[in-house]
């Protein structure tokens, strides 16, 4: 009698556990990796905001395959070592897929970790060509890569008649890659790189570099790193009397650049990925974002929103949360997002370049005709 009761209790307990675990198995966990602290914290938080907004909208429509999507965020602080720690954390949480990545330097070492675990990774902002080469096959880049940006940059230089340029980077995987590609392409196109400098991230004083640029006779400066340094460099260049052109890589795409550079930033060119201000169909999204978070959507909000919707779309097409199935579904994507068409090459980069030059006019980024 006692034995039977004991057996019944066990069975009930097991059934209870099975039921609860079945209930939580219906939640599909997505990992978000971005710089949540450090110099670029505002960009990481912007990406997380936009992804959560997209996922929330998907859940409201009933989720994917009947499951609700949840997110868990890990901070890579735009640092390779912290990126590795954050990546391991996400892998151990058993996420179905990972979205994010702003700094190529922080993303590069994590590719192997995700690759070994076979987890699909949609890279939203990071776009160094080093990532393309190191891709173990599970990562998908929805931001056009450095080599395409170099092409757009050369076109811009030629359009403005710059024959001698100075190229400045910060030594990390993204900026040094873009700088190298652009310098090589420019030399091939017949131009001259009269000054090639590397600065340290987080510095405020660029006077030494500014002095060197001025004495090199450069007609334009191409800054390939992020907006924090870009704004300060722009200010100090103008302060020192530099009259040439200033061209910025896509890492400078932030309203903060304009705020900090102020009047010194007038007339600066930026190679911009599709941001909410440049996209005609994004007004709705802009308002939703502002209503939800009380701040304006940042530069990568549109791409982050696309990432969230893309992964939902891929999971839906794969009809399962199996990693391999999702990777296959992603590879065959033909998704029309806010930021444009998402179709991958067999290297998992975008088939078409999504960069366009914009110019700072009156404190805003305006399309360059």
């Amino acid at each position, binding site marked *: 009698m006692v034995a039977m009761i004991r057996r019944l209790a066990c069975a009930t307990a097991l059934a209870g556990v099975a039921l609860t675990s079945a209930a939580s198995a219906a939640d599909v966990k997505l990992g978000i990796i971005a710089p*949540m602290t450090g110099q670029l914290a505002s960009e990481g938080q912007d990406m997380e905001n936009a992804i959560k907004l997209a996922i929330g909208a998907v859940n409201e429509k009933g989720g994917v395959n009947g499951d609700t999507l949840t997110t868990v965020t890990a901070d890579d602080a735009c640092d390779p070592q912290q990126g590795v720690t954050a990546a391991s954390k996400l892998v151990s949480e058993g996420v179905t897929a990972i979205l994010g990545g702003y700094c190529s330097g922080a993303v590069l070492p994590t590719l192997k970790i995700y690759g070994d675990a076979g987890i699909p990774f949609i890279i939203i902002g990071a776009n160094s060509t080093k990532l393309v080469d190191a891709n173990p096959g599970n990562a998908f880049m929805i931001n056009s890569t450095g080599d395409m940006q170099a092409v757009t940059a050369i076109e811009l230089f030629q359009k403005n008649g710059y024959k001698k340029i100075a190229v400045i980077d910060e030594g990390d995987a993204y900026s040094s890659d873009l700088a190298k590609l652009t310098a090589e392409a420019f030399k091939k196109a017949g131009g001259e790189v009269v000054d090639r400098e590397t600065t340290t991230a987080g510095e405020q*004083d660029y006077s*030494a570099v500014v*002095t060197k640029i001025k*004495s090199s006779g450069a007609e334009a400066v191409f800054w390939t790193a992020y907006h924090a340094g870009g704004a300060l460099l722009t200010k100090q260049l103008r*302060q020192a009397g530099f009259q040439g052109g200033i061209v910025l890589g896509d890492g400078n795409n932030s309203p903060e650049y304009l705020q*900090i550079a102020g009047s010194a930033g007038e007339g600066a060119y930026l190679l911009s990925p599709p941001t909410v201000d440049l996209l005609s169909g994004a007004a709705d999204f802009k308002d939703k974002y502002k209503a939800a978070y009380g701040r304006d959507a940042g530069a990568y909000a549109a791409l982050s929103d696309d990432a969230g919707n893309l992964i939902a779309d891929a999971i839906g097409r794969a009809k399962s949360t199996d990693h391999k199935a999702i990777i296959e579904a992603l590879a065959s994507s033909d998704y029309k997002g806010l930021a444009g068409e998402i179709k991958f090459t067999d290297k998992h980069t975008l088939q078409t370049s999504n960069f366009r030059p914009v110019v700072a006019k009156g404190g805003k980024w305006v399309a360059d005709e």
Partner: protein
Amino acid sequence: MTFDLVIQQLVNGLIVGSFYALIALGYSMVFGVIKLLNFAHGDIYMTGAFAGLVVFSTVGVWLGNGWLAVVCALLASMLAVGLLGVIIERFAYRPMRNAPRLSILITALGASMVLNGGALALTGGRHFAFNTDLGYSGIDISAVHITYTQMILVAAAIVLMTGMQTFISRTMYGKAMRAVSIDMGASRLMGIDVDRVIALTFFMGSALAAGGGVMAGAYYGSVHFFMGFIMGLKAFTAAVIGGIGSVPGAMLGGLLLGLLESFGSSLPFIGSEWRDVFVFGALILFLVFKPTGILGRSVVERV
């Protein structure tokens, strides 16, 4: 390298060096008095910059965005953040006065993270523009361009530092600070209120750092919650080169570091990506030959 280039780099180095000197002073003072490397010092600099920005924005509505508003922001920030320094000392460091050296070091690290994390939480990681109307006009000596703003800031830094040096060498409280830095126990026996002297040291050191923060914010035009990290590191390095615990040493160390950096980015054949390698390599070499720094005192342990 042309002569003009050399002079311009010299000027650049002196300007950035005076910022380093200002912050290094605070580091040195605190170390001198309680033998603590205050890791929170860089974050005090950052807090000072933010406090200055807040005051500047509020006052700027009436006084415009020129020098008057900057000076108001400077004084208000120095006062407020000086008091913050005193509060940190009272609650984070004083209870650890008799604890092992390592424990108080960890506390300092903790204080730094509290300030840093608090700033991140409050500002969301955004960069804030410190837009002043200070202008870029200046004088030109052949190809060398020095703006009036730069000259005024360097002058202000020199005034603050000489003021500090005079205070320490000429006043009663300054004498008390020197006494405490030599022997805390004996000072107490001589009737010096050690707690009050230490609080005063923290007030002055933090006020200087805050002043440096406001000046850097106004000069470079942006404040960010992480700006104290690199500055703290450099100021600490400058304090060590100059001889930690020595006030004139900190000033010298700061200027030297500024000059090393400026010339380090213009080395022939070596690109500017090697600048930090050059600077810290020089430092290591220097410390190998003079471990106590330029003006440091050799500490003799009497057994």
